[in-house]
């Protein structure tokens, strides 16, 4: 997917010479689909793309290192969910990465909520 460094591809889907691997035009589309987002400077777009790459790397490595699958060299959904839960900067992911909790814990928290309501 990477093209040679000599090609100046600004509008192309394939990022050519800016040291990024993710498709810049797709990143732009996603950014613009955010509510109220106005215009984005081209360099700012590349920055965001690079930051997203770093995010993926950090997410993958953190999840793997702290995950249960490390021994067996695997990375599972639960590893990602745990990391999202436990890492402050990844908290924003908990909406889309709900940690699967044990049924017992759920029932306990449910009881807790009912008790709270009874008190009120």
């Amino acid at each position, binding site marked *: *997917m990477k093209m040679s460094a000599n090609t*100046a591809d600004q509008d192309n889907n394939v990022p050519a*010479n*800016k*040291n*990024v*691997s*993710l*498709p810049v035009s*797709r*990143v732009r*589309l*996603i*950014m613009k*689909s*955010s*509510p*109220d*987002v*106005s*215009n*984005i*400077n*081209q*360099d*700012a777009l*590349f*920055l*965001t*793309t*690079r*930051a*997203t*790459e*770093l*995010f*993926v*790397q950090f*997410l*993958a*490595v953190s999840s*793997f290192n702290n995950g249960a699958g490390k021994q067996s*060299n*695997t*990375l*599972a*959904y639960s*590893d*990602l969910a745990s990391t999202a839960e436990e890492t*402050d*900067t990844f908290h*924003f*992911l908990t*909406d*889309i*990465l709900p940690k699967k909790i044990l049924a017992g814990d759920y029932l306990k928290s449910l009881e807790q909520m009912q008790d709270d309501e009874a008190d009120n």
Partner: protein
Amino acid sequence: MASSSGNDDDLTIPRAAINKMIKETLPNVRVANDARELVVNCCTEFIHLVSSEANEICNKSEKKTISPEHVINALESLGFGSYITEVKDVLQECKSVALKRRKASSRLENLGIPEEELLRQQQELFAKARQQQAELAQQEWLQMQHAAEQAHMASAAATQQAGSSQDEDDDDDI
């Protein structure tokens, strides 16, 4: 993955790009499919997060376009300050690429000739072209005239011959 519905929320980074990154970051690790899918969605979430934050910062700065500075500040305030050094490398590359492109285009366009002079030369060329065209048109017109004259003279001569014999006849008739 092409989204034919056009729904903005379906926009994600292509799965292949994510898979490639995961493979490069965690070589030899088996990654579950649902985990990969999640990483794809996390990307989208991250981009939205950064965009919104950068947009807010941009609005406060009364500028209309989100600049690299806004993005960097957004990363800082969201807790991704550790990304900033690497991210700035991209900015440097952007600048050097832009600089190269400006140099290249100015070499082509400039050639040491100021714009007014170029304009003047252009006008001259246009004037010359117009003149040439006018001369050509005139030549053609003259040629046509000449040809017409020749034809006229030829037919006139022919008519004269025919006419003189006819005159005799006329006299007789009277």
